[in-house]
């Protein structure tokens, strides 16, 4: 065959691949959203699930997912930011720094089920908390931390060096420079990354099966007593999240309308991920414009 014919065939094949990928995604999103759309009523989103009868909702699960996300971010964001600052500004080029980098790599490629088992051993059994939101949040922190460290390190490294030097020239100490000059400048990048990481946390299930548990107590939403086992805000109660719920109704199969519930829950999850994704882009650019007055 002539080279030109091969070239043309290759172009067609590669274009076909790209079109195929787009078609698969559109098909996937379309399938999930059209199937789940009719389930997205106020009643479904707020009412508790029903194990044996049809017509249950996912109210507590949705709340658990959001609350767990907030808890996880409260724990992992400061830690990730601190480690990111260290890696970007303080870390000397030596063996310890290299081993920390290796640890970040190891943590980010650990299977999430292994993180979940580690959580089961340490945060559930050893602490004596049992299956609880707190154990789940800590396990998710292990799973989320490497990503956040990378995000904040990159964002801080990307701040122009001249800004740092200007701050040093004014006699401002290193820590002050980090907090008052570098962090604000790096904020848009960190926020965008953190929102994207939230999307990942929101959909995570394998690490939560054995840490946050596969059941949710009957929540009483006007109970604000943190000690009460039925209070939605109690961080030491078991909590099944939306992603875990999808898995559970499909594998245990006691609920007669499992397909419907899973359809609705999947649609909520995918919508949330889309929201996080678009929100991160939009908010990141907005913040960048607001804080730097640079027009891109």
């Amino acid at each position: 065959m002539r080279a030109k014919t091969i070239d043309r065939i290759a172009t067609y094949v590669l274009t076909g691949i790209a079109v195929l990928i787009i078609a698969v995604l559109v098909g996937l999103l379309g399938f999930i959203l059209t199937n789940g759309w009719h389930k997205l009523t106020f009643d479904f989103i707020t009412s508790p699930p029903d194990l044996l009868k049809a017509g249950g909702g996912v109210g507590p699960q949705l709340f658990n997912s959001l609350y767990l996300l907030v808890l996880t971010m409260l724990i992992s964001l400061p830690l990730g930011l601190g480690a990111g600052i260290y890696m970007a500004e303080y870390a000397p080029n030596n063996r310890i720094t290299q081993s920390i980098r290796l640890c970040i790599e190891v943590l980010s490629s650990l299977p999430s089920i292994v993180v979940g088992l580690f959580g089961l051993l340490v945060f559930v059994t050893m602490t004596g908390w049992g299956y609880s939101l707190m154990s789940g949040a800590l396990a998710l922190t292990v799973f989320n931390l490497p990503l956040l460290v990378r995000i904040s390190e990159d964002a801080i490294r990307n701040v122009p060096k001249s800004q740092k030097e200007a701050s040093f020239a004014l006699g401002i100490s290193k820590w002050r420079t980090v907090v008052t000059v570098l962090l604000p400048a790096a904020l848009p990048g960190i926020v965008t990354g953190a929102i994207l990481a939230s999307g990942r946390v929101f959909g995570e299930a394998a690490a939560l099966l054995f840490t946050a548990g596969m059941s949710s107590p009957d929540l009483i939403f006007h109970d604000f007593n943190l000690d009460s086992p039925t209070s939605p805000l109690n961080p030491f109660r078991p909590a099944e999240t939306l992603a875990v719920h999808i898995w559970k109704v499909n594998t245990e199969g006691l609920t007669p309308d499992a397909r419907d519930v899973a359809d609705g829950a999947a649609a909520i999850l995918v919508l949330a991920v889309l929201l996080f994704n678009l929100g991160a882009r939009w908010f990141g650019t907005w913040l960048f414009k607001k804080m730097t007055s640079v027009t891109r």
Partner: protein
Amino acid sequence: MNRQGSDGMTMIEKNVGRQQHRLARDKSYLQSKLLKPNKKQSLENFFGKAIAMSCAALLLIAVISIIYFIASKGLSTFFVNQVSIVDFLTGLKWDPEGEPALFGAFSFILGSFLVTVLAALVAAPLGIGAAIFMNEIYPTFGKKFVKPVIELLVGIPSVVYGYVGLTVLVPFIRERFEVLGFSLLAGGLVLALMILPTITSVATDAIEAVPQDMRNAARALGATRWQTIWHVVLHGALPGCLTAIVLGMARAFGEALAVQMVIGNTSKLPESIFDPISTLTSAITLNMGNTIQGTAYNNALWSLALLLLLMSLFFIMILRILGRKKLDNR
């Protein structure tokens, strides 16, 4: 106007004297301030660095304790329950509740490897093809449509992939090939879709990093676009593309719920691609909740987890070697 003070000085003289005194005081104050280190700031500096450092140290602690705890639980199968390591790795029968209990995990190990390889075989050509398309063939369309699509695919939770596999792929295979449907094929395809974005984005970076000059040189010699891609671009991006595939395989190997939902979970060895199988991850997810901690059965599950951990460390080792190659090439 010229009022006299009691000590015989005018108001003006008094004021000047006062100001001189103040200036002198300020000067000595400034001098001492400039010469002495600022205690508050140096304390702040010290504590700031200490806090940042302890956050970074936490990463080290986390990894070490994960390896320690999983290993101590996982090894107790062999040291406390006296199961032979060779039997565990090569044994074909998994019957932990039988008499005598048998812990042959070979079918799980085989299953994990088979789905991973199948997923990589499907996803690698697609992913690298999409990466080439985005960089070499139609950059404007690629960057505008394919890239965001890939980014969205990354974000979709794995249970959703598993659920779609369960409701679309499994019935499709069941009707098309008249088999059970829950199969190695379904697991491989679901995983392929999941690792596709990973492979594409890493391969895109690798292809972008190939210097433009090399492409221009090839085109100047009369090479067609495909010849340039095949002989020059892909050649230069090879370590990066391999990295992409290994990263994808690492992700596929450790994925739990999506696979578990579609592969059928039997500990029998598969005879064809349409047979149900089990993987390390699916065995753990299904049984960990039903076994009592400390029993041999439970410990055997921890041994499976240890295998997973070791495999993920092994993948990282390969990635490091590939990364070094990339540096050597430059």
